[in-house]
């Protein structure tokens, strides 16, 4: 198998302003900011029968109300699918045998024990009961960094997709508590 599985975190570059400042000037209104991991996440060429674990990706959240962050995939079963570079292959696409897995590996810089979960289209809560991100008098909001890693276990049944590649998109969802 020689597929590249680019997972959704490549495109957003540096921000013009720090996250905490933006959430701060919203005054007493509830605000919510979610930033994407900074580094691209491409698994590159994967050999059959191996397990690839990505470097830690940091999601940054700024909020002055309790929130939750969820992760899901665009594909219903979470298995990377053959990609032409513009769209998924429709006729008899190649699909990897195993679903992409995710685990939260740190919270605000403190490592947490990873519990791997196979991703699918149902949003999975990366953290429950996350409180507001330390706002001072409701104005100056800090940030929470959620560290996540992705894992892909390739199978001997996976086939090379060349000239295409494999692709899956990860969706990060941030919700406020009511």
């Amino acid at each position, binding site marked *: 198998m020689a597929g590249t599985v680019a997972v959704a975190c490549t*495109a*957003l570059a540096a921000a013009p302003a*720090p996250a905490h400042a933006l959430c701060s000037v919203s005054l007493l209104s509830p605000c919510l*900011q979610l930033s994407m991991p900074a580094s691209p996440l491409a698994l590159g060429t994967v050999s059959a029968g191996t397990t690839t674990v990505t470097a830690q990706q940091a999601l*940054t959240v700024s909020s002055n109300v309790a929130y939750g962050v969820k992760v899901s995939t665009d594909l219903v079963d979470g298995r990377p699918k053959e990609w032409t570079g513009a769209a998924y292959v429709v006729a008899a696409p190649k699909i990897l045998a195993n679903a992409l897995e995710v685990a939260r590996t740190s919270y605000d810089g403190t490592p947490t024990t990873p519990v791997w979960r*196979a991703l699918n289209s149902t949003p999975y809560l990366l953290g429950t009961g996350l409180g507001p991100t330390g706002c001072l008098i409701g104005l100056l909001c800090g940030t929470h960094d959620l560290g996540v890693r992705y894992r892909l276990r390739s199978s001997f049944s996976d086939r090379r997709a060349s000239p295409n590649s494999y692709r899956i998109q990860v969706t990060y969802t941030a919700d406020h508590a009511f």
Partner: protein
Amino acid sequence: MRSRHLLSRAVATLALALVALIGGAAAPSARADGGVLITPSSVAARVQAGDRLRPVRVTNTTGRDLDVVATGLVARQELSGLPVYGLGPRARRDGRAFVRVRPARFTLRAGRSRAVVATVVARRPQTGRGAYGVILFEAVPRRASAARNAVTARLRLTANLLLTYPSRSRPATALTTATGLRAEQAPARALRLLVRVRGAGTIHGRPAARLRIRDARGRVVGRATFATGNVLPGADRELPAVVARPLPAGRYTARAVVRSGRSVTTVTLPLRLVANGTLPTPDLRIAALPVPQPGSDRAFTAQLELVNRGTAAAPVRGAWQLRSAGGQQLLASGAISGASAVPAGGRRTVELRLPGVSEGRRRLVVTLEGGGRELDRREVVFRAGDGPGRWTRLEDWAAAHVPLVLGGCAALLLAVCVSAAGYTLRLRRRLAATT
């Protein structure tokens, strides 16, 4: 109006100045990765059909242009207080009957922001009642799909909508009642208590709840205030409070008093601490649910790995469901029973015996339950049918268990060598004896 504007500017400038002064302390990891900011992320208003809500401003803090889609959706509330909403065609149709969002699609240039306005749509009379939902903002980098192997993320952020429809004939009631209380061990020998409240009125309420802990003599030894939040009508929500001071071993009674308007409800919970600040608490979670690979129409098993990270044994109770891949259609369901309790700090694998399903993609949903709430939930989507052959599965298994395979081969080789050496020695002795 002008004075309000000036005041806002002044406070904003003060806020920025304070950020500059204490920015390092306020932001433990002041990363500048960029993303999407929405404010206000919650809109509460008394409305009538046709009213325009306060605009929600979406800001692009990335260095790229974003394509943004805004959708109004009806939402419920889960135990943690977070909104629950569907994304299917029916949910989107219901959302259009709830609020109309303008603009629904737009491009947001780097560093720019844009206001999104929701207009209330009420096809059903909602007088004297509340209606709840979210505006869902989905953002993807523009023209991202053109680049090969460079797939962009999708960010979703939601702004909550809490709308009440006033009525003279049917006055709205924001009644919240306490229905339960539970306690669990928190870090640093603290206790975490959670009072369960239910929205029993016609609109959302924000109850005030306080906690008292008394020892066996009736003396108050611990006090705390529960963090509050909105509770939607018909929804259950848990409000947390932490008693940080470790209590000595002994028997206690925790009492939560929940006030909602003129209504006061009380719930109590007996506690027994086995050591200083130590409350035996089970914490059962699903450690893993590997994706099964069954044949079509053949009964199969799924391995459910459980872990108990708590300080007390945890009984195993729960349920499984087999559904269509999208989750809409229920194919089969059953209870998880018969498994013995998982000891504190222990792990256990439970085999789920599942009926055969026809060929195609299916969804297995497993939930663990305890104390009248869902402890954990795991969903995997698998394909029933002709999966990989036995040889491929053996290869995959061997690749996943390399040390075991190498160790087994070495042990087998050693056993063969020892047997061969023994046989050779015996053969030489026998030959020597005969000659």
